[in-house]
């Protein structure tokens, strides 16, 4: 990341009456970065995005865009443009007029304006639909008009509020790929709000996970998936098997934690200091547990019983009860060996890699005014 971030959010709080929608949010987003805000419904993603766009003003804290404080600056004077969740295509204008909307003010002259509108529509592959009205477009096409309308103004930051949530799965995946290549092509900062973890993982350079108005973790997709900091981050991004354990001590290679059934694990040190002898939560991803077939052997094994099974086409999700563990373990097997044929109640053996465990911090207590 370059030295001065494109967007610097500094200890921002936002109250709606006595309800705290954003709580001490600090965040830096670099120039040219594809940044995702991820979190469950109602966690404050839209509020944060609207604060960057200028539609909501933070109750306290500072937001700097490209080095200038944006507090009190109205949306029309910010170098940001937004793609609305509902797309907000002007119904009284056709596609070209929609895209030209923001250009009118720049007084470019008819030729230059037409050239820019044409180029923007080409960029989103809508060149042939310029004369259509908004209600004559499909969801995916409307979304592209909204993109072209914002990008034609060459903003420094493009803000997208769940732009894909109204599309069906197939189109959504198509548009995800397009968004990603569009961002690479134009090279500006994208801030994408989503509650779809896979979308965030697949598209962004970095992700901020939010819960209840707070930022729980900011990291690259890989980092956040492999080393979630807290239980709720781990849970929100894909499944996770949680195990309780007790810290034994610290060695040069990391922290040793004693667990039921999985023995003593050595885990990389978390940011927070952990007391020896304290209770700790460790987790392992379902796909890091592996079924052992026939007389296959592994250095670390457990035995269990299939409690439940769900078929997902390319994979099968299994719930495996292990004696001595409170909760059954969930695991994901590709259907290449016949995991989809395992009956419920079958006795199985599974292998695990002690390196695959992560230590998870407890969630900060949810602080709410009411």
């Amino acid at each position: 990341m370059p030295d001065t971030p494109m967007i610097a959010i500094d200890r921002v709080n936002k109250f709606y009456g006595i309800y705290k929608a954003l709580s001490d949010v600090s965040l830096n987003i670099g120039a040219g970065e594809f940044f995702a805000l991820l979190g469950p419904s109602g966690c404050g993603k839209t509020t944060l995005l609207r604060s960057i766009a200028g539609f909501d003003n933070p109750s306290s804290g500072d937001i700097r865009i490209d080095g200038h404080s944006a507090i009190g600056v109205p949306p029309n004077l910010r170098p940001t443009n937004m793609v609305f969740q509902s797309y907000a295509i002007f119904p009284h204008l056709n596609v070209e007029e929609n895209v030209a909307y923001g250009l009118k003010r720049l007084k470019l002259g008819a030729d230059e304006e037409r050239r820019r509108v044409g180029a923007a529509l080409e960029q989103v592959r809508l060149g042939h639909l310029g004369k259509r009205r908004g209600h004559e477009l499909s969801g995916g096409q409307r979304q592209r008009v909204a993109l072209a309308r914002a990008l034609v103004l060459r903003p420094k930051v493009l803000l997208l509020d769940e732009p894909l949530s109204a599309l069906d799965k197939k189109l959504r995946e198509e548009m995800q790929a397009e968004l990603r290549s569009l961002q690479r092509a134009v090279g500006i900062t994208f801030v994408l709000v989503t509650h779809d973890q896979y979308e965030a993982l697949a598209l962004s350079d970095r992700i901020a996970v939010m819960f209840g108005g707070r930022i729980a973790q900011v990291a690259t997709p890989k980092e956040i998936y492999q080393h979630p900091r807290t239980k709720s981050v781990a849970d929100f991004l894909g499944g996770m098997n949680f195990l309780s354990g007790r810290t034994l001590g610290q060695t040069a290679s990391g922290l040793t934690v004693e667990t039921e059934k999985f023995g003593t694990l050595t885990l990389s040190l978390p940011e927070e200091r952990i007391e020896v002898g304290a209770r700790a939560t460790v987790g392992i991803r379902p796909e890091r547990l592996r079924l052992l077939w026939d007389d296959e052997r592994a250095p670390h094994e457990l035995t269990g019983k299939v409690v439940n099974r769900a078929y997902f086409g390319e994979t099968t999700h299994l719930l495996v009860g292990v004696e001595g563990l409170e909760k059954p373990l969930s695991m994901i097997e590709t259907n290449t060996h016949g995991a989809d044929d395992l009956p419920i109640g079958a006795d199985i053996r599974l292998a695990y890699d002690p390196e695959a465990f992560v230590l998870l911090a407890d969630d900060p207590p949810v602080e709410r005014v009411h």
Partner: protein
Amino acid sequence: MAITASHAPAELAPPEPPRPRWSASEEASGLALISPTLLYAVSLLALPILIVFAYSFWSQDYLTIDRALTLENYRTALFEPMYQDLLGRSLVISLVVSLVTVAISYPIAWFISFHGGRHKNLWLFLITVPCWTSYLLRVMSWKVILGYQGVLNTGLMSAGITDQPIASLLYNSNAVVITLVHSWAAFAILPIFVSLEKIDRSLIEAARDLGDTRLMSFVRVVLPLSLPGIISALLIVMIPTVGDYVTPKLVGGKDGVMIATAIQAQFGKGANWPLGAALSVTTMIVVSAMAGLTVLALKLVVRKIR
């Protein structure tokens, strides 16, 4: 228009007995269901208009109607200076009234829609309150306000703004305009309010996001999208006010006489129903044309703004 309808014979034809097979169809049962209202509407709306239309081509000699077709009535209605004046004034008054009413109602509707908060319905309710009293009473109260020794004059004098009552407040076209605007405002606010309510608020935010100031986003998004409401408000006010009879009679004086007074005179004392009918038809056509032109002009203006 009320005048033409009021004395027409209401002929209610008995419904035809339906034929057996057709009577089983859905169409038949549907028609049967609406037939009372349909007959009612047809007899009370279409018939009087047809009768007035027919009368306008006849002539009258004292009490006898001569049914030979003639265009003489239209010649009088269109070329007699007195009727030209009256019709012209009526059109100007109704145009001014409808434009002023919309201009006053729009900000009110806008305020309720955008800043009414949780109390939108209360605001709307309050706006309809004046309509609970009789129309006559409301017109009379303007007489009290605008009169020579009325509320406005005594108020102005006691405030020291004038030392003599202003005589020109009542009994002229201005008084007619003021009274009519007040009477019709509630009817103009409602359609405008409805069209403003229908505007997706994110469109306004999108306009702001794309670089518009508050004012520009209003002009480029809110105004064009509320045009249907403006047009219905204009028509709702313009069409009935041309033929208004009561208001000019009560507050218009000599100067504020409108075409309806002349029409009434022909059907009454003048005893020339055919001329009255021709005046009615002429008014009807001219006001429709004016309404159409106004709507067209508005659409053009809004199209230009983009």
